[in-house]
C-alpha cells in the first residue's frame, strides 16, 4: 500500500544561516558573472559579510534553542541545538577572516573574481551542515560539500606544487570519504537507521546480544579511520603536510580552521552523540590516535624547515589535543552529567580556528613578499622590518604553544581539565609534554623573526583587509586569554543543549 508522502515541516528561520551562506555563494556567482569586474576588495567584503551575517543569525537561533530546548529540523535531518549553532558561529568567523585574507592573495591573478569566494562559502556551508547533522547521510553530504569545494580550492593555484597538493588531497580525501561512507553503511546494517536519534534509541532499547554487533563494530572502525583522515590525526595525517604546504596559503588557513572544526564536530556527533553505548569500544582507539598525533605531530614539526609544513605538523599535534578532549568526553558519553569533554573540544576548535587563520595570514603576507617561498629563512628579520606584524605573529605563536594569557592556553587548559577530571592522567601528561616539544617549533619561528639577521630589508606590504583579519585574530587571542569568562560563560550551555 503506497504511503501518503508527508512533506516535513520546515522552520525556515532555524535554517537561515545555511540559506544565507548558499544564497551568498550563488549570488556571488550569478551577479558576478552578469556584471563587469567589481571594484577591488568588494568580492571579499561581500563574502565576509555573508559569513558574518550567518554567524549573527546563529546567535539568535542559539537564544531560541536556549529558550525552547533542542530539537530537530527538516524531519530529523538536522539538529537544532546549541552545538550546531556553536559550530556555525566558529565556522562563520573563520570563513569571514579567510575571505578577508583571500582578496590580496588572488589579486591580479586569473583567480580574481567571485568564484573563489563562492567556493569558500559553499565549503563553509558544508562544514556547518556537518556540525548540525542529525543523520549520517546528511553528515556525509555536508562532508562532501566541504571536501569537493576544498579540492578545487587546494588546486586553484596553477603552480606545480598547488596542483600536486590538489591531486594528493583529492585522492586521499576521496579514499577517506569512501571509507567513511562504508562505515555509515555498516552502521546502518547494525542499527537499521542512519538517523542519530534513532541509532541512540535502538542501542538503548536492545540488549547487547540482540544487536548485530559485528557490523556495528566494523562500521565504527571505518568511521574512525575516515574521520581520522579528515581531522589529520596520526597515523592518518600523511596527506596533511604536503597539502598544507602546496595549497595556496589562504586555502591552507581555511583547511586548518574550518576543515578541522567541521571534521571534529562530525566526530563528536558520530562518537559522543550517536554511539555513547559503544563508548568503551571507541575510547581506547581515540586514546591511541591522540597519543600518536601528539607525539608524531610535535616531534616531526621540529625537524621541518618550511613554515607551512611546520604548521601542518603542529596542526596534527593540535588534533591530538582535541582528541584528548574527545577521549575525555568518551568517559561519560550519553550520561546525564556528561563532563566537560565535549564543551572543551568545541572551545578549543573555536579558538584554534581563529588562531590558525591569523597565523597563516601572516605567513601569506611574508611569503608573498618573498616570491612565494615559505622557508623559515624568509621570516628572518621580520621584527626589524615589520615590528607590529612580528608582534602579532609572536602572540599567535605563543598562543599555539599554549602560553598563559592567550586563548591557546584557555583552550589547552579546558581540554586537559576535562581529561584530568576523568582521571586520564597519562594522556594529560603526554599532551603537556608534547606541547613543550611543539613549543620549540614556535620558538624557532620567533627566533627567526626577532633574532635572526634580516635576509631582506624592504618591509613587506600588508594589505588592508589582511591586516584587519590579523588584527582581529590577535585581539581575540589576547582578550579571550585574559578574560576567558567571556567565552566560557557562553559555552557552558553547549553540552547542556546538545542532544
Amino acid at each position, binding site marked *: 500500500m503506497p504511503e501518503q508522502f508527508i512533506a516535513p515541516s520546515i522552520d525556515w528561520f532555524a535554517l537561515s544561516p545555511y540559506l544565507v551562506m548558499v544564497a551568498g555563494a550563488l549570488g556571488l556567482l550569478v551577479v558576478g558573472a552578469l556584471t563587469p569586474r567589481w571594484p577591488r576588495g568588494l568580492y571579499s567584503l561581500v563574502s565576509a559579510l555573508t559569513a558574518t551575517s550567518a554567524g549573527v543569525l546563529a546567535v539568535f537561533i542559539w537564544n531560541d534553542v536556549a529558550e525552547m530546548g533542542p530539537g530537530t529540523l527538516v524531519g530529523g535531518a538536522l539538529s537544532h541545538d546549541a552545538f550546531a549553532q556553536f559550530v556555525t558561529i566558529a565556522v562563520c568567523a573563520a570563513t569571514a577572516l579567510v575571505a578577508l585574507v583571500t582578496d590580496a592573495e588572488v589579486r591580479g591573478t586569473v583567480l580574481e573574481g567571485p568564484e573563489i569566494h563562492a567556493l569558500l562559502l559553499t565549503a563553509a556551508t558544508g562544514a556547518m551542515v556537518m556540525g548540525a547533522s542529525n543523520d549520517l547521510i546528511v553528515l556525509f553530504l555536508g562532508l562532501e560539500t566541504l571536501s569537493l569545494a576544498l579540492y578545487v580550492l587546494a588546486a586553484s593555484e596553477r603552480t606545480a606544487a598547488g596542483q600536486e597538493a590538489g591531486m594528493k588531497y583529492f585522492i586521499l580525501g576521496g579514499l577517506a570519504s569512501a571509507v567513511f561512507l562504508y562505515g555509515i553503511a555498516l552502521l546502518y546494517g547494525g542499527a537499521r537507521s542512519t538517523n542519530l536519534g534513532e541509532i541512540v534509541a535502538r542501542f538503548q532499547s536492545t540488549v547487547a546480544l540482540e544487536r548485530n554487533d559485528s557490523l556495528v563494530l566494523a562500521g565504527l572502525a571505518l568511521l574512525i579511520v575516515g574521520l581520522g583522515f579528515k581531522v589529520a590525526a596520526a597515523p592518518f595525517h600523511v596527506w596533511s603536510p604536503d597539502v598544507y604546504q602546496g595549497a595556496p596559503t589562504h586555502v591552507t588557513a581555511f583547511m586548518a580552521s574550518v576543515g578541522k572544526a567541521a571534521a571534529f564536530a562530525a566526530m563528536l556527533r558520530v562518537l559522543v552523540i550517536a554511539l555513547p553505548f559503544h563508548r568503551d569500544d571507541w575510547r581506547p582507539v581515540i586514546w591511541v590516535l591522540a597519543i600518536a598525533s601528539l607525539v608524531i605531530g610535535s616531534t616531526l614539526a621540529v625537524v621541518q624547515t618550511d613554515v607551512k609544513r611546520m604548521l601542518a605538523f603542529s596542526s596534527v599535534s593540535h588534533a591530538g589535543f582535541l582528541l584528548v578532549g574527545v577521549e575525555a568526553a568518551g568517559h561519560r558519553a550519553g550520561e546525564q552529567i556528561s563532563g566537560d569533554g565535549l564543551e572543551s573540544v568545541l572551545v578549543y576548535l573555536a579558538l584554534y580556528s581563529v588562531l590558525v587563520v591569523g597565523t597563516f595570514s601572516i605567513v601569506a603576507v611574508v611569503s608573498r613578499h618573498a616570491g612565494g617561498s615559505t622557508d623559515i629563512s624568509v621570516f628572518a628579520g621580520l621584527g626589524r622590518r615589520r615590528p607590529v606584524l612580528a608582534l602579532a605573529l609572536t602572540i599567535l605563536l605563543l598562543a599555539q604553544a599554549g*602560553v598563559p*594569557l592567550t586563548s591557546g592556553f584557555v583552550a589547552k587548559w579546558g581540554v*586537559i581539565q576535562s581529561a*584530568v*577530571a576523568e582521571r586520564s592522567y597519562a594522556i594529560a601528561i603526554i599532551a603537556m609534554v608534547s606541547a613543550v616539544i611543539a613549543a*620549540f617549533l614556535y620558538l624557532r619561528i620567533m*627566533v627567526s623573526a626577532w633574532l635572526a639577521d634580516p635576509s631582506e630589508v624592504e618591509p613587506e606590504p600588508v594589505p588592508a583587509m589582511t591586516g584587519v583579519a590579523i588584527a582581529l585574530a590577535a585581539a581575540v587571542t589576547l582578550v579571550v586569554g585574559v*578574560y576567558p569568562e567571556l567565552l566560557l560563560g557562553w559555552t557552558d550551555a553547549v553540552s547542556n543543549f546538545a542532544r
Partner: protein
Amino acid sequence: MHGAVDFPLLSMLVLVPAIGSLLVALSPRRRPEYAKLIATVTSVGVGAMSVWMLRAFDSHSGGFQFVSRHPWIESWGISWHLGVDGISLFLVVLTGVLFPLAIVGIDPHNDDPRRDKPYFAWLLLLEAGVMGSFVSLDLFLFFVCFEIVLVPMYFLIGGWGYEGRVGAATKFFLYTMLGSAFMLVSILATVFIASANGLGRITFDLVELAEGASFAASTGRWLFFGFAIAFAVKVPVFPLHTWLPDAHTQAPTAGSVVLAGVMLKLGTYGFLRFGLYLFPEAARWSRPLWLTLAVIGIIYGAIAATMQGDLKRLVAYSSVAHLGFIVLGTFAFTSQAITGSVMQMVNHGVSTGALFLMVGMIYERRHTRQIADLRGLQHVAPVFAAAFTVVMLSSIGVPGLNGFVGEYLILIGSFLTARWWVVVAATGVILAALYLLWAYQRVFHGEPDEENRSFPELRWKEGLVLLPFIGIIVFTGIYPKPMLERIEPAVHDLIEHVSDRTGYVEPQPAAISIDDEHGEGE
C-alpha cells in the same frame, strides 16, 4: 586583614607594571626616551608601593594580609585572589626594589636606541609576572604568572644577551616549560581530587584547598611530585640545573640580576607555599630526597664554581650552591630553618644580584669576563674593589653581613632534624669562601698589566645603584630582627599546619630562641 586598607595594593603591584609595559609598547617609536621614562616611573612607583606595604604590614600576624579577592573565571572556579604573609612579604619587596634598580641603573646597551622600547616593555611585563607569582593565592593565577614570566625572560636573554644567547634562551624556556607541564596536570588533579574528597566543589583557591582537602598518602605524593618538578627546575635543584649557568651567562646584566634576584626564588617559594602547605605529608615523606639533592647541589655548585674561568659562570654556579642551602632549610621542617630559608632567599637575591651587577660593570669596562684576563684591579679601582669585597663577603656568609644570618639559621635549624646532611652542607660554606676569595684574589690582587691599568673607577651613577644593595646587606646583617619577626609568625603557622596534618612534632632546641642567637650579630 590589616587595618581598613581599601586600596587594592596587591592588585596594583601586579597590574601597574603590566599596564606600564603596555604603555611602553604603545609609546612612539621615534622617541625612545619616553620608553625609559615610563618604565622608570612605573617601576619606582611599584617599588614605593611595596615599601609602603612593608610599613603597613602587621608583624604579629601569620595569616595573609592585604587580601583581595574577586571572581575571575567563575565557570572554572577560579578567582583573582591575592595576599601576602611573612613568607612572601620580603620577596615582594625585593621584587619591588630590584626592578627599578635594574631599569634605572643598567643600560641595555642597544646598538639602536629604538630597541630600548621592547627591552623596557619586557622588563615591566616580567615584573608583573614575578609579582603575581608571589602574591597569588589561587592555583590558576599562580600558574599563569609562573608561566608568563618565561616569555619576557626568553626575549630578554634572546634579544639582549651575549654570544650564545639564542641557545641559552631556548634551553631556559623549554626546561622551565617542561617542569610546568607536570605542574599543570598536578594542579588540575589536585582540584578535582580535592573536590571529590571532602571539599565538594571545584575551586582553585589555595587556602580553601590546603585547609579543606585531604589526600590519601599515595595520591598526595603523586600530586606533590607534579608540583615539585616545576619548582625543582626553577630553583634549580641539582640534576635539573643545567639551564642555569647558560641562561645566567648569556643574559644581559639586568636579566641576570632579575633572574638570580627573584626568579629563582619562584621555585623555593613555590616549595614552601604550594609544596609544604598543600601536601605536608608528601613533603615530609620525600624529605630525604630533597635534603640529599640540596646537599649535592651545595657541594657540586661550589666545586663547579671553583673551576670556572668565567666570572659570570662562577657566580651562576655559586647560585646553585646557595639555593641548595635554601632547599635544605625548607625541608628541615623546623621554624628556624624555614625562617632562615626565607631570609636567605632575600639575601641571595641581594648579594648575587649585586655580584652580577658588578660583573656586568667589569664586562662593560674590559669586554671580558675571563678571570685570567683580569688582574690587579684593586690598585686602579680601590672603591670598586671595596664594594665588591662587601658584596662577596655577604655571599660567603661572613658574620655581620646578611648572608651569615640566613645561613646560620638554616644550619642550626636543620641540625635538629637533618644532622648528617648539615654536616656535609657546612663544608659548602668553607668551599664558598674558597672559590670566591680565590677569584677575588686573581681578579683584584697583583700588579695590573697593560690592559687592566686603565680600568676606570666606580662611577657616581654606578655607586648610587650599588648603594641600596650594600645598604640592605649591612643593615640586615647587623639588625635582622625586624625582618625575622615578620617572617616568624607565618613560618610558625606553616609548621603548625604541617603538624596538624601529619602529626609531626617539631623538635625544640634546648635553649635557643631567636633573640639570643643573634646576639653576636648585633
